């Protein structure tokens, strides 16, 4: 039986992981490579590296880090942030990324998903959608959740999957940072609409939130989080054990 995936997300800026990290025994807590190794050894099923650099120099540092990570960590690696063209796909895939996630780049140019899927396969293209309720309607936001595109989110996600997105990360702006649990209502709507893997993001605060997620929505494939892992509030090994104890298929 296929297992439910647990995915830590690392925001990388100028070669460092942003959002404080606090691990005992980790020499350099802000080193993406060290942190990636730590998570891989702890039982993470996949990693997401998110490039939040704006400068060209920062971009070069990011790809160097990516290469170094891929030399040391042997679990799937998804890269997002600043992916606007097929050349951007090429740049990160050559450095060891397995999948590439697109967000604002696809909003600006919806043809990007189809072009990339044709060249690298659907399994390589991950749609990342930042979604927020506006007057009771799910809307897609761009530019890191700052700008309402006005597009209805479920329709947008369905359209991107139709174009060739092989997985969808649903990041609920409404629950993000609140730590009160994943946005089950929003995720249920997405699961109903598409038949590709759905990765839940935004809102996890404790182990039970992941258990509730997978038990309530069996069609969700993975749970993604950042700071709760970085701060050591949820330890991945313990999370996986708790999932297994609750009958959720997980890789121990």
């Amino acid at each position: 039986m296929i297992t439910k995936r647990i995915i830590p997300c690392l925001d990388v800026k100028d070669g460092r992981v942003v959002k404080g990290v606090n691990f005992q025994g980790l020499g350099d807590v802000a080193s993406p490579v060290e942190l990636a190794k730590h998570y891989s050894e702890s039982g993470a099923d996949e990693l997401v590296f998110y490039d939040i650099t704006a400068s060209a120099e920062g971009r070069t540092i990011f790809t160097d880090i990516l290469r170094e990570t891929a030399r040391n960590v042997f679990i799937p690696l998804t890269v997002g942030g600043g992916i606007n063209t097929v050349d951007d796909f090429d740049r990160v895939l050559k450095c060891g990324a397995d999948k590439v996630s697109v967000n604002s780049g696809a909003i600006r140019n919806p043809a990007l998903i189809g072009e990339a899927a044709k060249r690298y396969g659907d399994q390589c293209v991950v749609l990342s959608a930042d979604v927020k309720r506006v007057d009771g309607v799910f809307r897609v936001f761009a530019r890191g959740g700052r700008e309402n595109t006005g597009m209805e989110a479920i329709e947008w996600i369905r359209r991107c999957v139709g174009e060739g997105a092989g997985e969808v990360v649903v990041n609920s702006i409404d629950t993000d940072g609140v730590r009160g649990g994943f946005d089950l209502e929003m995720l249920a709507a997405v699961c109903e609409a598409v038949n590709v893997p759905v990765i839940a993001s935004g809102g996890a605060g404790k182990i039970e939130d992941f258990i509730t997620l997978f038990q309530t929505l069996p069609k969700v494939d993975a749970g993604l989080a950042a700071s709760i892992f970085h701060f050591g509030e949820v330890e991945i090994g313990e999370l996986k054990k708790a999932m297994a104890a609750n009958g959720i298929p997980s890789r121990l």
Partner: protein
Amino acid sequence: MIAIIDYGVGNLFSLKSSFAAIGQEAVVTSDRSVIHDADKIIFPGVGAFRDAIGKLRASGLDAVVREEAQSGKPLMGICLGMQLLFEKGYEYGEYDGVGLLRGSIRPIADVIPKGLKIPQIGWNALKIKRETPLLGRIREGDCVYFVHSYYAAECDESVVATTEYGAELTAAVAYGNVYGCQFHPEKSGAVGLNILRAFCEDV
């Protein structure tokens, strides 16, 4: 030395890195003399059967793969690389494979219940069907990382491990000196590295 055959499909950075991580020298190459001098061969592949077999034939490396395998050199196909080693593939039509393994590549949609997602993406457990040195360092139930929409069928004589995804799907094969993994050992953590290690040291 391990030769990782490069015929223009997919990205071989992680695969090469995974051999470095287990202390094995591996070169990515399309040079037939390098392939000939190698102790063992890795035959990778991602994408669609039709495109990949076309590129392989165009490069002339299909004959090299066949000759090297027939000379007794251990060879392992990974993911689509494994699929290409079979006689036939049914992805966007019917195509001949390299033909080192008996069987054919069929859509998983034919055998799994409706509603299950295709491709199968993620970590799934191995069920060991037959003893082989390739899997000698791992245990029944160990999870490995899969990404595939097609599977090897009619291959009872070579299947050594399967995985359960609505149906029992071929996960690994071994027949004489020819091996294959449907999953990605280079993306399967410590379990995957142990399979690569076994290929390097035990077969």
